[in-house]
């Protein structure tokens, strides 16, 4: 009989998240209904210095055209299970004023949201990472996202996480010198790869609108719907579709957790959970575990500190999987008849 912490929550085989850079107000009309239909919470990537304002970033495709969500609007989405990441104070080069862009932006966002902001998303090109990198950890961020179109492994460097683009991109190339051919978006992008490697896909898009502005980084509602449809179909119930803070928290909890067998009996077995240091900003402290049984048993039940677990996430003849709020030193017991 073998007990182990699951790679992903609920015993899922891969994880999926989606992020919206700039956190524009249009999401409420065009993206939120699709999120609700597929039960996939999203993640807003907010420019702290322009909350609730019409975008003013002269180099941006959206400048003067789109309004950022306000703190109040984002708090309503948080209630629905969404989360918010930091996209700097001005969406500028982090090296010009890293204190404001990395440290001050976090404080401004946290004040507006009334909760910790744990992830940072590099604005613009990723070149600004290296010089500013020294600030992220000390500021209390748990993770930093790039935009380099990779599937994250299930044990990734949290300060070098990848995101893949969801985009419209039809017709002739926007930048033929660099990207000489038109590209079509594949709604299955990286899903089968994630299923193969048990990794974590984090999608990245910007505006979701029937009339997108930047075809290489915006989506239409139809494209978003097709993407979520593929996520659910490829996943087939084995996908953990959630916002990225949940995933980061789970990875940190999993890394800190150890299950040690302490008792073996005729009708029960028990383990002790050891939780090493979990970073303070971690919000979700749940873990999932799977018990692999050497032989089928009847009426298995899980007890944590002598309290029964209400339900299993998954159960078959040889495996039971469940999720619980984890604390250091908990006694986890399997009973059967």
């Amino acid at each position, binding site marked *: 009989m073998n007990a182990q912490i699951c790679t992903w929550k609920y015993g899922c085989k891969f994880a999926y998240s989606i992020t919206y850079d700039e956190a524009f107000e249009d999401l409420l009309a065009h993206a939120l209904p699709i999120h609700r239909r597929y039960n996939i919470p999203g993640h807003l990537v907010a420019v702290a210095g322009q909350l609730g304002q019409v975008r003013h970033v002269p180099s941006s495709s959206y400048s003067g055209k789109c309004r950022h969500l306000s703190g109040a609007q984002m708090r309503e989405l948080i209630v629905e299970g969404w989360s918010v990441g930091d996209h700097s104070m001005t969406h500028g080069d982090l090296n010009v004023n890293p204190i404001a862009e990395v440290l001050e932006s976090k404080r401004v966002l946290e004040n507006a949201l009334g909760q910790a902001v744990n992830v940072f998303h590099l604005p613009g*090109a*990723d070149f600004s990472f290296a010089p500013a990198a020294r600030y992220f950890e000390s500021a209390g961020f748990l993770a930093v996202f*790039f*935009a*380099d*179109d*990779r599937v994250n492994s299930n044990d990734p460097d949290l300060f070098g996480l990848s995101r893949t*683009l969801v*985009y419209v991109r039809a017709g*002739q*190339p926007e*930048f033929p010198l*660099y*990207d*000489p*051919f*038109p*590209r*079509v978006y*594949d*709604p*299955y*992008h*990286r*899903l*089968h*790869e994630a299923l193969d490697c048990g990794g974590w896909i984090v999608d990245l898009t910007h505006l979701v609108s029937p009339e997108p502005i930047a075809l*290489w*980084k915006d989506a239409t509602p139809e494209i978003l719907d097709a993407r979520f449809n*593929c996520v659910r179909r*490829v996943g087939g119930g084995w996908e953990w579709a959630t916002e990225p803070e949940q995933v980061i928290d789970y990875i940190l909890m999993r890394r800190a957790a150890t299950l040690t067998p302490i008792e073996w009996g005729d009708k029960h077995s028990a383990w002790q959970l050891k939780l090493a240091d979990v970073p303070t900003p971690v919000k979700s402290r749940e873990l999932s575990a799977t018990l692999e049984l050497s032989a089928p048993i009847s009426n298995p039940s899980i007890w944590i500190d002598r309290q029964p677990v209400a339900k299993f996430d998954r159960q078959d003849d040889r495996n039971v999987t469940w999720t619980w709020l984890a604390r250091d030193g908990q006694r986890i017991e399997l009973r059967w008849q």
Partner: protein
Amino acid sequence: MPNIRIAPWKENKRFAYSITYDEGLVETLGFAWRLHRQYGIPGQINVYPEMLGKLTGDLSAGFLQSLWNLQKFAEPEHLQFLLREGWRVGCQSKLDNPNAPAESLIQQRLELENAIGHPVRCLAFNDATSATKWRDVAEQAGFAWQFTLHDALNDADDSSTVIKRAPLYHLGPTPNHLANDPYRLLALVRDRGAWVVDVVRLVDRYPQDPTRDCTPAELEKRFQAVRKIGAENIWVAPPEIIADYRALRLRTRFADIAITREQVAFTLAVSGARALQPLTWLCDLDPVWRAPHALMSDGNAIPLQRTADNAAWMFDCPPADQARITMFDGAERKP
């Protein structure tokens, strides 16, 4: 009434896959052909006729430096070897004389055909617009198919001679930073019952142009994904063969359909195409028939097979204009 039709793809496969290599660099062949043989995926290579066997790069550099920057183009015998492996060879477009483009292309086609001893029917363009622009000229010059760089799927009912190709890349440029996804477009093409044609320039451990080149490992993962997503449902062949099938299917019509309890007969009308290869015919027949056969005009009778999904009967035969095909139950009378 029996529903007689031609399968969108050969052997009633649900979707199709091809891969092409532009420019004909010999490094590509060194890494690629073994993978092609291993995974049963014949490819297509497009070459500059005047560059066969030549070296390019900075020849003035010292020997060691030259090793790093020289590129060699395939020799005719390399291409003949690939033809024997089931590949096809196409011509990479290079319009030497804009004032007489058709003559220029004819000359290149003949030069390549003479070098390899095999017909050349495809012309590859390495951009997104030229294939459409020069399509008529290419057809005048004897090129049945024009390949373009346009990342999209080809539909089964598309009658265009321009074949869209989806580039396999190592790493896309800014601002998108796209990176190679071995499954890219494969599940989508399966869902849509369409045809995806990959294009690569160089397959090397150290890709030179990240938007057009890939590594051998990336290519192998791509082929694994083709086989995994495709399973028994994918038709894998050089694009020339699939394009011929598609065009022939779209040009074939049924006429004079006669249906009785004992037999179903029809005449073919094939417009403007030679019978280059067999088509896969599908038909729903009377369920009491136990051993359906198709009797051809030449007196040859072919037994029909059940499709994989058991939903219809099928047989393969090349369409000939005005040929009459009669289907009957071989269990009731001798074929």
